[in-house]
């Protein structure tokens, strides 16, 4: 059963066709990689899924339901979480608060409950804090909980973004270049985290340039070039695909 289905998605910016009639399915419980050269439209696809952009044509089904017209926060509420290519944390806020941001959409307390600090609100806060700490521990940054986010290392900022996304309680998580700026050690850890995410029953879709990560972590790959899908398959198949090698992986000139 496909959790996410993209159907003939097209997005134009002015004259440029950023995403050109792209269709693919993401099966529930899979780790799928979206790869392609810079400027191929990968991030635009992500932005279409999360409602940051509206498609000019085509539809996006999540769990069989069209989410094409929903605002971003509704989509998150339905269970799609994401990270950003250029890290977008709340730089001046603490790590734990950053993670609590993700928890927000699963909480209910309103202004009045907060002012009066009603018992239900207190319970909710406590639970949310526990959840947040659990997610920080999950990605392994629990020791930095009270740090200001901007003081974390690059790699830990990426992990923090993942923790924030996980805190939204997603069924589906979108990671945009999660290994960007990470060293080998951190990348290896990231692969473990991604697998654990999947093991929690969360479907993963990721963009990544680090081929070792892609080949190791992903079960299925979709390749874009110039906004269009040029290939789809297992990592092994993709590595053998002539078109992909030519367009993206590069021809060795030795």
């Amino acid at each position: 059963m496909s959790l996410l289905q993209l159907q003939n998605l097209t997005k134009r910016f002015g004259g440029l066709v950023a995403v050109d009639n792209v269709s693919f399915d993401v099966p529930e419980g899979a780790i799928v990689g979206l790869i392609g050269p810079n400027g191929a439209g990968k991030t635009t696809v992500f932005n279409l899924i999360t409602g940051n952009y509206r498609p000019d044509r085509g539809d996006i089904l999540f769990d069989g339901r069209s989410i094409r017209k929903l605002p971003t926060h509704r989509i998150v509420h339905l269970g799609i979480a994401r990270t950003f290519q250029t890290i977008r944390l709340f730089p001046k806020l603490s790590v734990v608060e950053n993670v609590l941001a993700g928890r927000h959409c699963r909480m209910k307390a309103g202004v009045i409950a907060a002012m009066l600090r009603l018992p239900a609100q207190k319970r909710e806060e406590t639970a949310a804090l526990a959840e947040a700490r659990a997610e920080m521990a999950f990605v392994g940054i629990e020791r930095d909980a009270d740090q200001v986010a901007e003081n974390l290392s690059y790699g830990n900022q990426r992990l923090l973004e993942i923790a924030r996304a996980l805190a939204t309680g997603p069924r589906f998580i979108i990671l945009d270049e999660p290994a960007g700026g990470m060293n080998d050690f951190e990348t290896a850890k990231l692969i473990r985290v991604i697998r654990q995410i999947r093991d929690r029953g969360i479907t993963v879709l990721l963009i990544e340039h680090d081929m070792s990560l892609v080949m190791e972590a992903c079960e299925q790959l979709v390749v874009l070039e110039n906004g269009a899908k040029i290939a789809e398959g297992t990592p092994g198949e993709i590595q053998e695909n002539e078109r992909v090698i030519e367009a993206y992986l590069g021809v060795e000139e030795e």
Partner: protein
Amino acid sequence: MKDVRPVIYAVFCGALLLAPFFLNAYWVDVLNNVGLYAILGLSLNIILGHAGLFHMGHAAFYAMGAYTTAIINTSYQIPVLWLMPLSGLVAGVAALVIARPIIHLRGDYLLIVTIGLVEIVRIALINNVFGITGGSNGIFGISRPELFGFRIRRPEHFFFLIWGFAAITVFLFHRLENSRFGRALNYLREDDVAAEGSGINTAHYKLIAFVVGAVWAGMAGNIFAAKMTIIAPESFNFWESVIMFMIVLLGGRGSIPGVILGAFLIVGLPELFRQFATARMLVFGAIMVAMMIFRTEGILPPRPRRYPAAVADGGGDGP
């Protein structure tokens, strides 16, 4: 370094509480004004400090509250303080209606629109809109407030009313800041794309921030009307909004102690400079520039929220 802040706050509160017994009516009234502006500053702080919306039209909501109180009190003789919730409600509903179409405007565009808002309200009041605002004369003969049968007339009485309300405001707003709501405002201030991407309905929270701020400004307007017994459009001009704006920024965006200090400085300093007579505002202007240069983030910027260290029960945090 040990945290001396709680001690300072305690000393401050104690001194404040004793002040009316030692100061003359004039200085008590100065403190009353400071208190009133502290409440207004705290209410603007929700919008400007926490949500980061450039709102320079807060006097409009203040005016709505004051006029609601004045009109109903003078026409139906309903006791002034009973009208406080209604004043807040009217301002809040007005904020809801007005803010919805403009909330998506960014930075300076929102700034000028809110300035426009306060001018439109003032002009409407002057032109006796709906024939109920009394035009430029304003409304007079607002009755003195009564609390538990006690008639509040002297500055010392008002002192306890105003600072009592200020204390309630601080208490409630402190809790609000340290809640899901307060955090949501900070998220959208820091990065509204990321906030939206984390599942926060940013448009909704901007709107609610406006409404909460407006409700409180409306209630402050109620106290103002009760204290002055006469209100006129000129009390709610653009300059009033600027004063509130400066209080928040000078004291420290998003910081309750900062805003209260800001109110002391912006409203209190010109009174201290009275010996400079006509030059007092000149000195005041120069000092504002200097203070901003020496403390660019405001004098008492907010401190990070603290959360219980480990996974423990008993949520929230102590004040």
